[in-house]
């Protein structure tokens, strides 16, 4: 390194150091610790002597029925992701138009993102009340008006779900088909995500789409739908790719707050996700080694899915 470079580094270090130290101490350190712990029987119980156990935690994990069920729950919560992304895009298209009071609308739609998550969850808990919640009141009203004879779901109290996944095993069953706690969490997630950061990203991306391209297409006789499909949408591809990657990562890591605040992971574990499972294993059962193994498997899944996204999504973006 040249003398000038060294001096530059010396100047920069004092500014970088606080952040670097924080990162090493509170992020890199615990990450490396958990990697090591995943290969041991690390336990907060002093009566369990620390031992290197090799791949034992990972072997146990693959025969752990709860892990399979909660992994499935985690994947289930991703089914709302495409709807949320499509909703954000539609909303961004609407809010990118020059209409009166657009700033107010943008603020209103972004409101869930800067409202306390716990407050929102408590609010949704009331909305989902099977007897006096407004959602079921609306369903009852529609059902009565149209004479559909429809039963409203029990939402957070029910183990039913749209795919008919069984409660205690990884299997499908018609008996479990319906709307229940899992779907309630998905719907709430979609509502939160539609007006969230994705909306801002799409709004920014839409502002950057060259208007001359859209005008040229319109002059050539393209209808608004065709302009959007053939001109605007391809220009949004990098943003969509980024949103898909981030939503997948966030979705796979999520579900903790909802389980903690709304359902305690129930009924019968149907809203327990891997992040909540890691918490219960580490801090309720004190099995730090096993919880670390689950965390690293979750990391591997996220990493693999991101690679797949990158490989195929990036190609689409390039095209």
């Amino acid at each position: 390194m040249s003398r000038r470079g060294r001096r530059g580094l010396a100047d920069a270090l004092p500014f970088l150091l606080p952040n670097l130290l924080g990162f090493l101490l509170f992020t890199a350190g615990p990450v490396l610790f958990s990697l090591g712990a995943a290969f041991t029987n690390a336990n907060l119980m002093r009566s369990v002597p620390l031992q290197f156990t090799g791949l034992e935690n990972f072997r146990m994990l693959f025969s752990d029925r709860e892990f399979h069920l909660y992994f499935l729950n985690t994947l289930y919560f991703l089914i709302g992701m495409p709807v949320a992304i499509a909703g954000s895009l539609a909303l961004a298209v609407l809010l990118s138009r020059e209409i009166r009071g657009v700033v107010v609308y943008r603020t209103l739609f972004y409101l869930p993102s800067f409202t306390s998550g716990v407050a929102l969850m408590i609010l949704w808990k009331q909305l989902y009340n099977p007897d006096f919640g407004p959602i079921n009141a609306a369903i009852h009203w529609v059902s009565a008006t149209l004479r559909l004879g429809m039963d409203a779901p029990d939402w957070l109290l029910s183990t039913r779900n749209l795919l008919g996944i069984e409660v205690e095993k990884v299997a499908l069953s018609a008996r479990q088909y319906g709307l229940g706690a899992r779907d309630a969490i998905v719907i709430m997630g979609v509502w939160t995500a539609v007006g969230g950061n994705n909306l801002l990203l799409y709004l920014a991306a839409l502002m950057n789409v060259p208007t001359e391209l859209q005008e040229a297409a319109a002059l050539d006789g393209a209808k608004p739908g065709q302009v959007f499909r053939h001109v605007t949408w391809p220009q949004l591809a990098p943003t969509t790719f980024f949103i898909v990657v981030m939503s997948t990562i966030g979705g796979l890591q999520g579900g903790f707050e909802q389980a903690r605040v709304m359902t305690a992971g129930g009924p019968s574990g149907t809203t327990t996700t891997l992040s909540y499972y890691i918490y219960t294993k580490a801090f309720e059962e004190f099995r730090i080694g096993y919880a670390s193994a689950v965390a690293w498997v979750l990391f591997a899944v996220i990493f693999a899915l991101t690679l797949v996204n990158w490989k195929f999504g990036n190609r689409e973006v390039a095209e």
Partner: protein
Amino acid sequence: MRTFFGLALLALLALGGVAARLRPRPADPRTVPLVWASDDNPARRDQIDLYNRRHPGQTLSLDPNNTGLEKVVVQSIAGVGPDCFDAGEGSLSVLIAAGIVEDITDDLARRGIVIERDTWPAVQSIVLRDGRAYGVPTNAAADAIFINKAMFREAGEPFPKTPWNWNELVSLAKRLTVRGPDGKAKRFGLLVDWNSWPGFVIQWGGEVFTPDGTRCVVDSPEAIAGVQFLHDLIYVHRVMPSPVEEAAIAASGGWGSGVITQFGGGRKAAMAFGGRWWLCTLRDRTQFPGLELTAVEAPTHAGRVFHGYGKGTFVNARSPRKEAALDLLAYMMGTEYGQLINDQADGLAPTRAVCYAPGYDRNPKFPEEDYNAVWRATLERSVPNKMSPYVNSQAANRILTRQMDLVKNDQKPVAQALRDAAREVNAEIAATLERNPALKAKWLAVRRAADAKAGAR
């Protein structure tokens, strides 16, 4: 823009000033600061005030935000735990294994306290292991039947005569349940917190674990019959709300929310199965105006035996203020604290003698509560729901709760759910023993002794 940021800065400075004025005063530096992690029960403040008055050299403060077992264990291991903390049934084995509590039998004896002699038998297992004390009971409770007097008057029903049995209660609850033309219940005969299911297991002669704790036996015919009865109160006798109906009558939150506020505030049930500690909430006349209560002994089934429960307070083994923490435990075993607990209705005093002192039966501050003797008589006949020291209680509870959720929602037959629960908990015991050789050696010794005893018989 400059004006906006200027005003924002001024507003923040003003708010900072308000916060500085409102912040709690730091403890007197001349006193020993003592932190007690306990729930935010309104009664706790008076208990702390009394302690601070009696111990001018110490300043006890409440930490209501770190009360979960997981928080206490993790913080204590990290060396930043509270000096004292509360924990419930089944926590002791975890606390001992984590090394955050220690044997204080001799420390207590020096202060004239003997847990087996002084406290209610139903709560001793919370703090005792192999005859040694690791803490003291904070309070004690056993459930009886709360009665809403006005609803009985409206229905023209006399109060039940005790002792009585659950079939008699079902008949009465059916008469008190009122349904509208649409079949929806306007009023239920009875409310029971589903978490009280171990009480039904005990009453029907069953147990969740064997007395030595080596096996889960929640699938015994007696245990199944007890939980089946609880299930049938909802789905066969229809005198108790289902989870959906329960959500519909749920009142607002706050301390002690749930079944208590449903019973007191919703006026949706004529009777409720609960403990004296409910009165901490139900005495609030602003929240529950005109609520007239009495209580009678709970019905019986296999015998006149009930489920006793409570909490224990422990000293953090890593606390640098152990002597002061022991003072708090000694205070809890004293008469003043016991009388305060009885006055506040935070359950019953952990020390038996206080509950036999003059003034307990008819407290002049609450003359309408003429049923205090019911709680004491129930507690006299109560036994604990002993947990196993060979499995993490939170892991076992998670398994049991998952199966109980299915039973409560009528999604799985009781017998099958309890068989699955017992199988899974026993598998968890086996896995725990595999991970902990010392515990396994102890388990084997206990099993061998039990087998030898059975062989000798």
